[in-house]
């Protein structure tokens, strides 16, 4: 069987586009050529594949025509359209039609190659000439070979600077020919080369996960080890690591060593160049770091009054004051109060302006250098946690309190200023703040009183609980209406309600609540303001009132005990409905009975809104 090579030559693709292309190539090969690639080539300057056993022809295609019963009216036209005589039409399953024979594959490849190039879909694509094709970067050549025949294009190209046009003798020799011309076309092979080069250097790390990108930044990877001047080790470690990884895609090794993956050049010269660039960047960071440290964190914090936190929400100094108040309300101790005072200090530092992702961490480093104790510095460092859906929580207690205070303040001020998220727009990250707050309560065990949240913020935060807890939403909604005092208690209540939904006590409470709610819920306006025992006439209603007075429901206590107690009302309710006519002619009696039912509902309702739960 013949083999086929397809290569699309491009100007340097971003790594993300390489991964998109890698995922799409096999399907494009199947859709447009009916083949499954045996090898994929993905990298910054070329995308392609090799098929080892190419069929000689495309498959025959059955083209269905008119139904046989319309032979007289429609067969002639159909036959003419397909260039055959009427008598040549075949009959299958009651329809006339023709078999279009498959074409030699090499005849269809040129047009299909165009379809493959045009078939990619990238998150970001561009135009580069008037050809109309969109691609992640300009396409500069296409080469298709069937065995030794060049079906599309002329040559491939080797390494951009050391090798020019490359004749590919035959499709199967593609990868090996490119390797002789300074290019490793197989991404996994490049990756292995990089990893083994890094392993040979030893002790490398990749905290920012740059390897996946570096694989597509080179066609001819060479790993070099180098060192930067030791005086930069005075910088906070993450500042050094961020400089190396985010800016330069280097891999940190212990101390002042690092590894860089290059794509060619004279190693000594290139190493010196990369090292100088890194040192220049570190010099820049050291310059701002030294200025900040010379000022000291307390002085830096003093500048917060002149930095606006948010239009309408005052300065960062105002934010720090609010944080201290919230920390107190959350029951935080001295360490968290001190951390709250210094939490935003790094917003006034010069280094955070350069490394915005290191906010919190830099403040903590500065506090450490100024001699503040660990409890304070770790709280400052942890204040933004959790910063993603599954991200880690603060470990220290002061850290949890400060993190909760920060999120509470952001939510409260944003809502006060009318910046409630709408649809998919959430420019201030309020959904993330809400989920973070809930996780601090649920997983972090922090008590966050619901009273600290204004109504709209509370609804917004507790709505997130519906997706956060793996429970039917009705139970979460029921619990949100309970009298649970803090966010954690709401979640526990939802879980307990769900766990005990089949118990007889639950059944009893549910029925009592439900009947009271159905009858009196909509007539609340007609109910008396307060129950008047003097107006109770029937035995059944007296018994219910007496039973109700004995019910002991602790809104934040054990649900089982509360349900047992509440369930005592079930038979009393049953008797009440059997014997008492609520809608008495006497308005005062009627209003009193409605009040009694509402009291039953509201007493049980401290456990949750049972009407949310379908039965």
């Amino acid at each position: 069987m013949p083999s086929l090579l397809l290569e699309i030559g491009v100007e340097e693709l971003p790594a993300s586009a390489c991964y998109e292309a890698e995922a799409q190539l096999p399907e494009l090969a199947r859709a447009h050529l009916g083949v499954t690639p045996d090898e994929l080539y993905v990298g910054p300057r070329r995308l392609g594949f090799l098929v080892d056993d190419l069929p000689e022809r495309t498959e025959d295609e059955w083209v269905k025509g008119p139904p046989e019963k319309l032979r007289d009216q429609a067969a002639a036209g159909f036959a003419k359209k397909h260039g055959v005589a009427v008598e040549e039409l075949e009959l299958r399953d009651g329809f006339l039609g023709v078999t279009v024979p498959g074409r030699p594959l090499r005849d269809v490849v040129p047009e299909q190659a165009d379809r493959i190039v045009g078939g990619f879909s990238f998150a970001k694509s561009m135009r580069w000439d008037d050809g109309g094709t969109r691609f992640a970067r300009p396409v500069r050549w296409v080469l298709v070979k069937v065995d030794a025949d060049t079906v599309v294009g002329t040559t491939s190209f080797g390494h951009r600077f050391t090798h020019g046009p490359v004749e590919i003798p035959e499709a199967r020799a593609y990868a090996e020919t490119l390797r002789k011309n300074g290019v490793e076309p197989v991404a996994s092979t490049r990756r292995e080369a990089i990893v083994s080069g890094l392993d040979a250097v030893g002790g490398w790390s990749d905290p920012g996960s740059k390897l996946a990108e570096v694989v597509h930044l080179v066609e001819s990877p060479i790993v070099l080890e180098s060192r930067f001047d030791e005086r930069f080790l005075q910088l906070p470690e993450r500042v050094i690591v961020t400089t190396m990884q985010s800016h330069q895609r280097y891999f940190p090794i212990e101390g002042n060593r690092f590894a860089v993956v290059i794509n060619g050049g004279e190693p000594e010269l290139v190493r010196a160049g990369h090292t100088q660039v890194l040192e220049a960047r570190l010099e820049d960071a050291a310059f701002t770091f030294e200025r900040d440290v010379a000022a000291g964190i307390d002085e830096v914090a003093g500048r917060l009054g002149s930095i606006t936190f948010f239009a309408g929400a005052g300065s960062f100094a105002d934010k720090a004051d609010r944080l201290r108040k919230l920390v107190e309300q959350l029951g935080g101790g001295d360490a968290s109060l001190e951390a709250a005072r210094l939490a935003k200090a790094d917003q006034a530092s010069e280094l955070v302006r350069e490394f915005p992702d290191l906010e919190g961490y830099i403040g903590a480093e500065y506090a450490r250098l100024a001699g503040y104790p660990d409890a304070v510095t770790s709280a400052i460092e942890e204040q933004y946690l959790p910063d993603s859906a599954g991200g880690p929580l603060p470990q220290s207690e002061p850290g949890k309190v400060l993190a909760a205070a920060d999120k509470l303040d952001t939510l409260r001020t944003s809502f006060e200023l009318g910046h409630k998220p709408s649809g998919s727009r959430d420019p201030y990250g309020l959904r993330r703040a809400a989920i973070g707050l809930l996780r601090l309560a649920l997983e972090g065990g922090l008590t966050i009183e619901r009273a600290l949240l204004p109504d709209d913020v509370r609804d917004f935060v507790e709505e997130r609980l519906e997706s956060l807890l793996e429970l039917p939403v009705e139970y979460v909604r029921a619990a949100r209406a309970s009298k649970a005092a803090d966010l954690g208690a709401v979640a526990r209540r939802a879980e307990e309600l769900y766990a005990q939904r089949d118990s007889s006590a639950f059944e009893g409470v549910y029925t009592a609540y439900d009947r009271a709610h159905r009858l009196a819920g909509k007539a609340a306006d007609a109910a008396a303001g307060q129950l008047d025992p003097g107006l109770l006439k029937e035995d059944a209603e007296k018994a219910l009132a007496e039973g109700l007075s004995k019910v002991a429901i602790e809104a934040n206590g054990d649900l089982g005990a509360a349900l047992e107690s509440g369930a005592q009302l079930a038979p009393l309710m049953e008797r009440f409905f059997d014997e008492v006519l609520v809608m008495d002619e006497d308005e005062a009696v009627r209003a009193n009975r409605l009040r009694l039912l509402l009291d039953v509902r509201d007493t049980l309702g401290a456990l949750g809104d049972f009407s949310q739960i379908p039965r």
Partner: protein
Amino acid sequence: MRHSRGVNYQEMIIALERYWADQGCVLAQPYHTELAAGTMNPNTFLRCLGPRPWNVAYVEPVIRPLDGRYGENPFRFQHYFQYQVVLKPAPENVLDLYWASLEALGIDLKQHDLRLVEDDWEQPTLGAWGLGWEVWCDGMEITQWTYFQQLGGFDVELVPAEMTYGLERLAMFLQRKRTAFELEWAPGVTWGDVYLENEREWSRYNFEEAPVDVLTRRFDEHEAEARHLLERALPIPAYDQVLKCSHTFNLLDARGAISVTERAAYIGRVRKLARGVAEGYLELQGEDAVAAA
């Protein structure tokens, strides 16, 4: 290594001018008002709109008040230089032309690690974006490379390639210097000799002395004038007013006078004007085309 002799700053500019002139570029001159990037020069922003081919190269002093460091930081300045090249439409061999420009500066492409690293460009105040790269030479970003896709909110008709060389970085690489102030500008004269005092005084102005109330008023005035000129179908003078708005905004920003929420509103105002200019410019070009036909 041909460049180890160290080509000085002005020779570097001369080499670029010679090279791009030979490629058929118009050698233009810097613009007469403050710009934060060579892209904002009408020779790029306006000329890249519409259906007419245009090849141009020029030095542009860029003014970024927020980046000033009183001349104390070796790598940060509120005033520095870009060398801007625009080829519209981008020829198929545009990258090869660019690499050859580095050779014209004495860089041996085989000896160094040259890379194109994804860096997409967006300028919200101009309603402009494009895809491209930063060019690395042994890890140093020496050029910002962009295929424009939209300007002033309009899709470009012919896709231009824009190459913006960072002249200080390029010179630091060529001269193996660790600070721009030590770069040799001309024999016996350093970059610092020419611009250090400039950095000190402008940093003071930008951060301490620029009058916030006057600038705030001036922004409104430039905006009003731009609108007026657009009504009078004078997009080119209107564009100067947009540039002045943009610079005034940058000064207010350096003075810390703009909060996060106000920022978006200011940017929106400039973008709206830039769109108006692009629209007006395209309309006039369309009329010219009709008249020519």
